[in-house]
């Protein structure tokens, strides 16, 4: 009877795992961003928010925002609103194409980096 319970518990655990709908990745990759990756916005965004595929360690993350002339935008400190998100406040931006370069460390200490652009065009 005890063996039967053990087998049932193992099967239930495995079934729960297999039936979990969302799949995840063992390194933190960018899932989505605001402003959206490659988008054009017509109002200066007050912040850039990056959402990753898994929890990250905020002390070991870096976000750099560059304008079209590779000048660094003086953004605020990195905020960590949720386990998978980073947010940096932005000053009022002049119209330009901006590149967001991010480096993050997931909770298993693996690092990933990437970049994307968005454009702020005057309305």
């Amino acid at each position, binding site marked *: 009877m005890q063996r039967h319970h053990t087998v049932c518990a193992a099967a239930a655990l495995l079934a729960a795992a*297999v039936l979990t709908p969302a799949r995840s990745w063992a390194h933190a990759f960018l899932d989505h961003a605001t402003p959206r990756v490659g988008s054009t916005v017509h109002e200066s965004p007050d912040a850039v928010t990056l959402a990753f595929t898994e929890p990250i360690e905020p002390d070991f993350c870096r976000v750099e925002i560059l304008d079209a002339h590779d000048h660094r935008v003086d953004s605020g400190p990195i905020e960590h609103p949720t386990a998978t998100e980073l947010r940096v406040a932005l000053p009022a931006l002049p119209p330009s194409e901006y590149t967001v370069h991010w480096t993050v460390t997931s909770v298993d200490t693996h690092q990933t980096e990437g970049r994307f652009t968005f454009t702020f065009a005057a309305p």
Partner: protein
Amino acid sequence: MTTVVTILGWLDLLGTVVLAGGVAYARFVAPLSRSGRRATSLAALLLAVTLFLELLATSVRLSGFVQDGAWSLFSKIMATQWGRLWLLRCVGLAAVVAVPFGSRVQVILVALWLLARSFQGHAGAHGAVPAAIDWLHLSAACAWMGSLLQFVLSRPPNLAAVVERLRRIATLSVAVLLPAGIFAVWLHVPTVTDLVSTPYGRVLLAKIAIALSIFILAARKHFVHVPAIDRGSTTTIGSLHASVRVEVIGGALVLLLSALLGALSMPAPTVH
């Protein structure tokens, strides 16, 4: 750095399998031989050194993020999930070696200690359920491969009984390893194409190929060698030992590839 992380991960896995497998063998199969005891002691020592080196390597990898000195870096690492679990693994290792070898308490401590490892790695970053599945996978691999190593290092007088107990452990381990392994592939590789088009997928394929070869050898042992020994045959004993040695070497290769998978980046999802 990938090479260093892979080598350290391999040493960590080897030590874990030898120590945890030795405990499983002592509890469920037979008392350890003198060589077997020495192997588990060396494994505990190897793990202690490897844990320290892993902290060192992680500090070097993360040093670029902290500008205000080594102590600040150390405190920040210790505040991470990885750092807390690293500390738990160190304390757990000390507890495992402090209790009587092969006792029920030690089996429970080893199980909890393996759980900390599963939560510290890739699977733990995914969440609690993947970490629990990884723990089942790791526990089964330790019980199976660690027991086979102990068998190689011993010459038990009651061979038929020992082989029968080993067969039970191997059967149960395969029953856990196969579904847990399939789950890990499903979790880590988004599409079938990624299995051949990414370094992660190709290493995973190599690992599966070696694991399947070990399964075939184990099946031969299960259906041919063990029944023959049960019938009193002595001619198959040499063949059985040779097969087990090959399985242990294959197991070490699988652990190497597992360590490499732990260092490689998985196929990335689409960003929007």
